């Protein structure tokens, strides 16, 4: 039996009928056309599918869409504001924080939570915070540099 799910995605109310087994990442990608949340490992390890749910970083490949009913979801498509890129996106741009770009949406959305908790997060704290996000280009140096720089700019 299908279930009705009402949620907010990037500030827009969405009302969808879904099979219980539909994963949040598939709802976002296949039903709503938001392909920013990438499916990498599909086993809750790589973090490419990370989105914010009620402000918290979560892996959308490990959530049922029905569990997101009533929640406020932000994907990478919803991060930039009217005035342009989000400061973390800008910092990735400025610091060459991406290579192939596949892990980038997940990295940036996890970084939002890391800097929410502590805008002055150190290099080590950022690395620890990114435990659930893998970059197969191994571009961690510039990813960490970007996040630390974004934090420094926000707290300046």
């Amino acid at each position, binding site marked *: 039996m299908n279930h009705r799910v009402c949620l907010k995605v990037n500030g827009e109310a969405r009302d969808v009928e879904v099979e219980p087994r539909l994963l949040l990442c598939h709802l976002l990608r296949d039903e709503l056309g938001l392909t920013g949340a990438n499916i990498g490992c599909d086993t*809750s390890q790589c973090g490419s599918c990370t989105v914010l749910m009620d402000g918290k970083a979560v892996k959308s490949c490990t959530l049922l869409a029905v*569990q997101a009913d009533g929640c406020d979801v932000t994907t990478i498509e919803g991060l930039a504001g009217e005035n342009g890129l989000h400061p973390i996106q800008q910092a990735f741009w400025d610091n060459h924080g991406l290579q192939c770009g596949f892990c980038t949406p997940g990295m940036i959305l996890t970084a939002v939570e890391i800097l929410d908790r502590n805008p002055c997060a150190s290099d080590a704290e950022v690395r620890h915070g990114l435990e659930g996000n893998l970059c197969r280009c191994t571009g961690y140096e510039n990813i960490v540099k970007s996040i630390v720089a974004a934090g420094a700019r926000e707290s300046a």
Partner: protein
Amino acid sequence: MYPSRFDYHRAASIEEAVQLLGSVEGAKLVSGGHSLIPAMKLRVAQPTALVDIGRIEGLSGISSDEDGLAIGALTTHAEVAASAAVKSACPGLAEAAAAIGDIQVRNRGTIGGSLAHNDPGADYPGAMLAFGAEITAVGSNGERTIAASDLFVDMFTTCLDETEVITGVRIPAARGTAYLKHRHPASSYAVVGVAARVATEGGDVSECAVGVNGVTGCAVLAGPVSESLCGRPANQDRIRTAAGRVGESLDGAVGDLYASAEFRVHLAEVHARRALAAAASRAG
């Protein structure tokens, strides 16, 4: 990957969840789902129905009094790790919670779910044993309180019956607690995790407990380690000698490609030494 088909029920109360578990054949509970959903995607688990208890009010949150902590079953690992009450009353529990998975996993995974799942690589079971936790569960026969040492029966197996739902955990206040872990670099599961609790009286160790997860199929209490340390001051040499006995409790240690059984037992000894030293120093 997506799970096989199932029906979905959202329970509004514990009573409704218990009733659904009793009446819908093959139903499983879900809250954070961070053990169950991956298993369902791999089709290792194929429940015919899920009963979602994730929205039941009053099942989440942490309260503390002079005796200790009361933690609702739906409290996430992130909440336990960040809680000032937990850090103060039982610092080792905050360390265990902070060691689980990663930020995203800790934002969804719940203490009740982790205990009910009893994964050999989970971080909470050893901590629950060492810290003397009591688990409350409600089922079709009413409510009961279960000692952690009775809850964990075997790998992925607890003493909970089919209709029982964990509602909360009580943990006695204990400053002298610590949890240390060797994490698997890919999965973040505990290759070895050691929880230690030490209490002192007049400079001597009056109470000591060490719980180990990750090494054997089910978390264990390392009795000989505690016996060896009790009744005397916890100096470096005594801690080393006591930790050296952890292997006596680790019969049936498991090995895999990443870490042999022998290596795990060695790591358990090293981590027991460090965890005991940290716990003893906090106990004062």
